[in-house]
């Protein structure tokens, strides 16, 4: 993963999802504004963006549950407007909000959902045991869903989405609201699915999640796609290899910015610190101290998708 050339791949016939000029409007509000992308078999494809960027609206169209306003959309080679049920029969969907039945047991939730796909009962029972094992929920199989932890409910929702052995798994912010342990367990399960060849499409606003899981991703902002590529290629294109964070005494930040601006390719002045974008963080730190400046704290780190993201979508607060 993380090869630049992946961006230049010609659109192949292997695309499981292909969108062109895709638009979704709610009344006069244009939530998705003419986006185009392709998801290829076997890859993990991400939609990264702040809240309200149009990720979930795009995802719901790809899930075949939200009719598009205009544009072209092909899912598994079919048109969702015409073949919704046929498409959905081959999709796994993990919605942003759990919609498990809290009154039913873990097993019953899987069973009921499997029946919606008309999976024969006998076959379904076997699959449920495998899925419980996969989701590490075997011991909780006969418990009601209501008292389960958030992480367990998510794992159950993922298990449920796999009940029809989907060709394409759609995950809308799969780890939002989970504690770090639960997130890592979930990532591990998603890796395993990927290793088995399941194609994943996910939305997230967590940079680490996108870097960990996605082979390729698009960054969305205000309903548009503002960048596309592998995490590494996006960092190479929209950021520098490393970033130095310098913290000075309050009130000093602006003044210090002028003194160090030439040490990086780009400098960003935040209320509480300076970000110096550079190819060599340690050298920049040495240069800062070489000029006799004494920041309160210094951090030289690798550039992350977060830097790309903030560079592309700005630092304005999205409510």
């Amino acid at each position: 993963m993380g090869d630049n050339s992946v961006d230049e791949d010609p659109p192949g016939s292997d695309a499981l999802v292909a969108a062109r000029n895709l638009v979704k409007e709610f009344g006069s509000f244009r939530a998705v504004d003419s986006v185009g992308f392709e998801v290829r078999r076997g890859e993990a494809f991400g939609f990264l963006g702040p809240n309200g960027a149009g990720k979930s609206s795009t995802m719901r169209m790809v899930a075949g549950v939200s009719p598009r306003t205009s544009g072209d959309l092909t899912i598994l080679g079919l048109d969702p407007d015409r073949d919704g049920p046929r498409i959905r029969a081959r999709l796994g969907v993990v919605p942003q909000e759990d919609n498990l039945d809290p009154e039913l047991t873990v097993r019953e939730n899987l069973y009921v959902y499997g029946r919606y796909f008309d999976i024969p009962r006998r076959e379904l029972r076997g699959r449920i045991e495998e899925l419980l094992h996969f989701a590490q929920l075997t011991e909780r199989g006969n418990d009601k869903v209501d008292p389960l932890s958030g992480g367990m409910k998510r794992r159950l929702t993922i298990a449920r989405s796999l009940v029809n052995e989907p060709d394409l798994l759609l995950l809308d912010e799969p780890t939002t609201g989970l504690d770090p342990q639960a997130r890592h367990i979930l990532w591990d399960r998603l890796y395993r699915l990927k290793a088995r060849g399941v194609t994943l499409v996910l939305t997230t606003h967590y940079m680490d999640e996108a870097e960990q899981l996605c082979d390729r991703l698009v960054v969305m902002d205000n309903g548009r796609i503002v960048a596309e590529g592998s995490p590494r290629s996006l960092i190479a294109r929209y950021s520098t290899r490393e970033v130095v964070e310098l913290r000075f005494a309050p009130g000093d930040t602006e003044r210090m910015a002028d003194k160090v601006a030439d040490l990086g390719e780009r400098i960003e002045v935040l209320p509480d610190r300076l970000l110096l974008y550079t190819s060599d963080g340690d050298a920049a730190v040495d240069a800062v101290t070489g000029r006799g400046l004494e920041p309160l704290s210094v951090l030289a780190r690798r550039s992350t998708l977060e830097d790309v993201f903030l560079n592309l979508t700005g630092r304005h607060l999205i409510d």
Partner: protein
Amino acid sequence: MHRIPALRVTGYMGRAYARTWRASIMTTFINPVLYLLAMGVGLGSFINKSAGHAAIGHQTYLHFVAPALAATAAATTAASESMFPIMGAIKWQKTYYAMLATPLRVGDVLAGHLAWIGVRIATSVASYLIVMAAFGTILSFQAVAILPVGILTGAAFATPLAAFAATQDTDSGFSLVFRLGVVPLFLFSGVFFPLKQLPVGLQVVAWITPLWNGVALCRPLAAGTVTATGLVGHLAYLIAVSVAGVVVARSTFRRRLLV
């Protein structure tokens, strides 16, 4: 049998209901007993000795009120099953969205849920019939038809109310429907006294309510005095309201769920 996709929805509803059926089945049997005792036997002991006895055609008040109460049970079960549960499936537990992520379509979800409401109406009418038989108020085999007629009466409530429920964002409208709709119908649809006792204006209002039409069907069925001409108008009316309700519900469900 689950080749019909909507029945998968009905199957789920049944499974969810199975968790609480004990408490609910008790009320479907206890309510008829209480009503028939209080109204039919208790209040009836006064009416049977008064001028009212002639107004209800010289039958006992118990015989007069019991089939009408069966129709009422259909209406109230329909009303409570078609408002809160539908809103819950959209807003609270979002079960509809789970269903719609599968090959099921909005029409399947609506049809499957309505079928389940039909099962609930049938259960409450059937338990009324059993209790009525125990009270000796069933005088004819025609009374068996109270079951389908009761389901139809319930459907005339359930389908428009389901259409309404799918447009709501809070449940406050539902208690209004009960207070301003279901309760007045319960009191003024000829269940407890003949419609002729009402001013003419109100009689006309009652004629266009589904409950009165249901009552007007169930009463002669219990007595075994039903005639074909007596049936047709009421049946046609109830069918028309139910079908109109389905048509509107299809549209409100689609508007709500396919965004």
